[in-house]
């Protein structure tokens, strides 16, 4: 990135309360210039409120908002160098596409808008539709108009409030790539609010996972996925198998744990919780990291791998992989995703199996949290949010 900081977004201690309900707890966040930043969380987690405070559509109860070096906390939206792509697009129904896109330029007193508007419409491939009214366009086209209408103003920061929520899956995928392309091209800071973890991971450089008005964890998508620090993040981003284990001993930078009679090894560097011998810790492993071997071939498993025994409860063939649910003494529904390369025909429901994985793929979490935080059906998570 450049040294230019005029497109930085700095939130310092901002919070928002509606009566006795606190939508956003005091929050510090810095979004560096030119980055694609995603605020990810289930509905009601405070992500949209945070975005609206940056846009100026909501006034923080406390704290300050900086854009670059300028404090904008009390500035009305029309004086802020940011633009928003609204969830439902909020295109002006009485104006045609051209005038919708030209709106911001005209408000700033720019007279000759034709060339700029046409270029912008070409960028989003809507040059032909300039004289149509918004309701004559499809959802995806309206979405592109909303992006063009915001981008034409060359904002320091572009705010996107669930911009793809109303599109069907295929179009959403296409628009994700499109938005990412535009962001790379124009180099503006994007702050993107979404409840779709896949969308956040595909598009953003940095993701902040929000839960109940707080940022649970912030990092690159790969970092969040591989090193979740809370059970909420572990369960909300993808799927995690979490096992409750007792700390047995330490050897070098590895922690040896006891779980259900077996032993598991956890690299100390990957444990976010303090561990004391005899204490408890939650051990996690992602389903695709695990290999599945039939109990008869258990002898062929290389030494040094973490192992757990169990019985296949269910298997789902989904094309690229097969997803198994394994009933094991340490975890009643252990998820295992196996690539369909060499399928062992003995791996059917009812078969006894050994689950094993490289200890390096194990992560450790504080055992005082709920195992189920961030899963479908837990507080604040709706069905759609975890899809």
């Amino acid at each position, binding site marked *: 990135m450049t040294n230019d900081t005029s497109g930085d977004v700095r939130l310092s201690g901002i919070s928002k309360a509606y009566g006795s309900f606190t939508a956003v707890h005091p929050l510090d966040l810095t979004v560096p210039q030119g980055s694609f930043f995603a605020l990810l969380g289930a509905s009601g987690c405070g992500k949209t409120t945070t975005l609206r405070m940056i846009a100026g*559509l909501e006034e923080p109860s406390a704290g300050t908002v900086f854009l670059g070096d300028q404090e904008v906390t009390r500035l009305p939206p029309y004086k802020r160098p940011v633009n928003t792509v*609204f969830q439902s697009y909020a*295109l002006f129904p009485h104006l045609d596409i051209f005038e919708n896109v030209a709106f911001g330029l005209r*408000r700033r007193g720019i007279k000759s808008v034709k060339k700029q508007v046409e270029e912008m419409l070409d960028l989003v491939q809507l040059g032909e539709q300039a004289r149509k009214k918004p309701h004559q366009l499809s959802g995806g086209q309206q979405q592109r108009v909303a992006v063009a209408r915001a981008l034409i103003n060359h904002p320091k920061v572009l705010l996107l409030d669930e911009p793809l929520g109303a599109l069907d899956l295929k179009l959403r995928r296409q628009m994700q790539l499109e938005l990412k392309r535009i962001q790379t091209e124009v180099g503006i800071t994007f702050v993107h609010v979404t409840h779709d973890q896949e969308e956040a991971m595909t598009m953003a450089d940095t993701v902040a996972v929000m839960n109940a008005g707080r940022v649970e964890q912030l990092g690159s998508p790969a970092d969040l996925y591989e090193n979740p620090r809370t059970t909420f993040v572990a369960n909300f981003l993808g799927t995690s198998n979490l096992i409750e284990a007792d700390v047995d001993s330490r050897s070098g930078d590895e922690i040896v744990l006891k779980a259900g009679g077996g032993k598991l090894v956890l690299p100390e560097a990957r444990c976010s919780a303090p561990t004391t011998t005899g204490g408890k810790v939650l051990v996690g492993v992602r389903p695709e990291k695990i290999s599945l071997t039939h109990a008869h071939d258990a002898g062929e498993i290389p030494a040094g791998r973490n192992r757990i025994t169990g019985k296949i409860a269910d298997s789902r063939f989904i094309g690229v992989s097969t997803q198994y649910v394994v009933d094991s003494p340490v975890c009643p529904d252990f998820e295992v995703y196996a690539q369909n390369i060499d399928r062992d025909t003995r791996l059917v429901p009812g078969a006894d199996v050994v689950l094993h994985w490289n200890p390096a793929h194990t992560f450790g979490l504080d055992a005082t949290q709920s195992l189920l935080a961030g899963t479908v059906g837990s507080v604040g998570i709706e069905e759609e949010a975890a899809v």
Partner: protein
Amino acid sequence: MATLTEAPPPLSPTAPAKTPPRRRGRLVPYWLLLPGILWLLVFFALPMIYQASTSVQTGSLEEGYEVTWHFATYWDALSEYYPQFLRSVLYAGSATVLCLILGYPLAYLIAFRAGRWRNLIMILVIAPFFTSFLIRTLAWKTILADGGPVVGALNTLHVLDVTSWLGMTSGDRVLATPLAVVCGLTYNFLPFMILPLYSSLERIDGRLHEAAGDLYAKPITTFRKVTFPLSMPGVVSGTLLTFIPAAGDYVNADLLGSADTRMVGNVIQTQFLRILDYPTAAALSFILMAAILVMVTVYIRKSGTEDLV
């Protein structure tokens, strides 16, 4: 016999069973339209034809009237009563403008700012309808009475000097002046302005205001470029619902005005009920109708809201 009668059914029941519902389905809209069409025919079309024929009759009350295609009645009526026509347009137009000026902020307030008071304010807007039109207008006679508090206050504030200079009042009277008639019209038709305005403002998506603000529009510009254009259907229907009945009204001019403030409604009323010159009254009614129709058409064309209405 039994085998013969039982053999063909597979074909026949399907054929008639399929066609009748479709035919019935096609007729349903017409059946639904029938009551409305009958109503229009009996209470609108027939009286119109009857009136049209009356307007081209000649004769007298004693000898009876007959159709003589005497179109001159129209010309005579217009040349004799054009001041009342102009006055009607002027008064109704002023009342409509006043209604818009008074009604728009209120409708805006109810639609966007009233919060939990919304229903209460709506009830207050409609509340006057619980009293008779006549009683409400008579009440204004008391309110604007000579030497009453309102006239006194206007006098002290020298408002009456201004309105007298404009020819809207005379001396220190308000009653029996054009101002009183316009006030009465404005008061009586204000709800017809507020209700359509409210319903079209209320339909505007609040996020459009946010989007305009986000795109550098100051609140006043947001109103000018987004809110007002989107409320045009309400403005058009509100002004029509106010102007049309106000132009034909005679109660306000009768109760609050004087001989110098007679509107065309008063003339028609007098011709029909006192002088009993039915052809002239019918001709005046038709001229009024035609004039309003022309004005409304031009207005709707000009306001360019056909695709928004």
